[in-house]
């Protein structure tokens, strides 16, 4: 059985962190598993965790009246699921559903926030990493806004 530290070492998000830092992170982490169709979190819930997906695909959904649940984005292995634990009011905005069997590493948000506050250097480092991931996700989202495949006759 791999230790959580060994698992974290292979996660791109944590690439290059020292063993000490990885041990600190591992103290807030645990391995989790979701079955296909299982709800990982729900809109409106308290957000006290985030996940690094190791295997499988997760759909971020919302329920649209008269349309049903609609997937906004899918999160795959290597990616991070969940941001609402970072800032108050720590509340979820979407549903997350496992589209396949999912194996992930889950992190206790308040545990991690506590460690970051205690060690601003680690806090800054982690925040930079999250910011980078968020910026990339925002880039994908912006490209989607362009609706490049849409055909709008103009001019």
């Amino acid at each position, binding site marked *: 059985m791999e230790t959580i530290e060994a698992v974290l070492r292979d996660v791109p998000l944590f690439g290059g962190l020292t063993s000490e830092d990885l041990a600190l992170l591992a103290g807030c982490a645990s391995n989790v598993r979701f079955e296909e169709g299982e709800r990982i979190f729900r809109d409106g819930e308290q957000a006290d965790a985030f996940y690094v997906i190791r295997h499988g695909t997760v759909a971020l959904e919302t329920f649209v009246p008269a349309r049903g649940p609609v997937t906004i984005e899918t999160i795959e292995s290597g990616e991070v699921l969940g941001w609402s634990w970072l800032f108050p009011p720590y509340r979820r905005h979407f549903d997350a559903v496992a589209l396949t069997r999912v194996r992930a590493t889950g992190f206790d948000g308040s545990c991690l926030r506590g460690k970051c506050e205690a060690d601003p250097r680690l806090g800054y480092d982690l925040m930079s990493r999250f910011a980078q991931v968020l910026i990339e996700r925002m880039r994908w989202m912006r490209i989607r806004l362009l609706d490049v495949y849409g*055909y709008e*006759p103009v*001019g």
Partner: protein
Amino acid sequence: MIEPETLEALVVALRNRGYRVLGPTVREGAIVYDDVGSAAELPVGWTDSQDAGSYRLERRDDEARFGYAVGPHSWKQFLLPPRVRLWQAKRRNGGFEVEEEPLDDAPLAFLGVRSCELHAIAIQDTVFLEGRHVERDYAARRKDAFVVAVNCFEPGGACFCVSMGTGPKVGAGYDLALTEILEGGHRLLVEVGSERGGEVLDELPRSAPEDADLEGAERAVSGAATRMGRTLDATDLHGVLARNLEHERWDDVAERCLTCGNCTMVCPTCFCTSIEDVSDLAGESAERVRAWDSCFSLDYSHIHGGSVRRSGRSRYRQWLTHKFGTWHDQFGTSGCVGCGRCITWCPVGIDVTEELAAIRSNKEANDGDD
């Protein structure tokens, strides 16, 4: 040497050989190229006064036949006619049959081709004859064309062939070349550029040139070289333009340009055409027409969803950067021969030599590391 009156014999000799003789003649206040039945139709004693946005015919105080620069026409009128049907199709047996338009290969003789125009014809030859596909209509018209070139002695106010290295003295590509000499008696020096040119000259009354004739011809042409209406620094325009696709001058010229496309119509090298499909109301027959088009039209760059070049700024930039820059990439030469027509016939007097100088001066001020 021939007398000015011998030009009539030249026209007759060409007609007798089956050529449709085309040459300069005065029509509606301009010297245009059209069928010439007799040398009397040449613009005898006329000259043209040209400047940006301005063209006037004026009387000369001599009887010169070629005492003008260039008019709104160029020889592309005949090699690449403004409108040509490519084929017709008729519904038949549940499908349709296509019949290509018979080629118009009546041999043409061009009388009075300037050096810049010879270069322009060579440039269009590259476009239509030297690629993977040959333009069959152009090839048919071009194939037997007989060229009587003329050395310039009266350059126009918009001319800058010296800057482009395309004149005023004719180089290769002619059957006969004329130099009109006015000083010390009106006469023309004839040079032979091809076997058939020699055969035609043999039919004309002529005399051997003397030293004074050769010197007079030389002075006429070299004098023209010193009286260009415009100059342009053509050094590495390709690079200068490639580095300045974003430049405030494009905004400046866009304020003035009407995107009317006149410059592309009068330009002797502009070759863009549109492909127009037409059908009858019953849907029984259809045809395709090739017609002159201009990169200044919105439709020119249309792809599904709209035009690629919507602004006048981008369309002017397309024209100028193509003509002086990317033409080199596409066809291995500049697309400009310095004839000045685009300057003269621009309704708002935009002068390419001025625009290019403005772009270059900024380049040298701000882009010195290239």
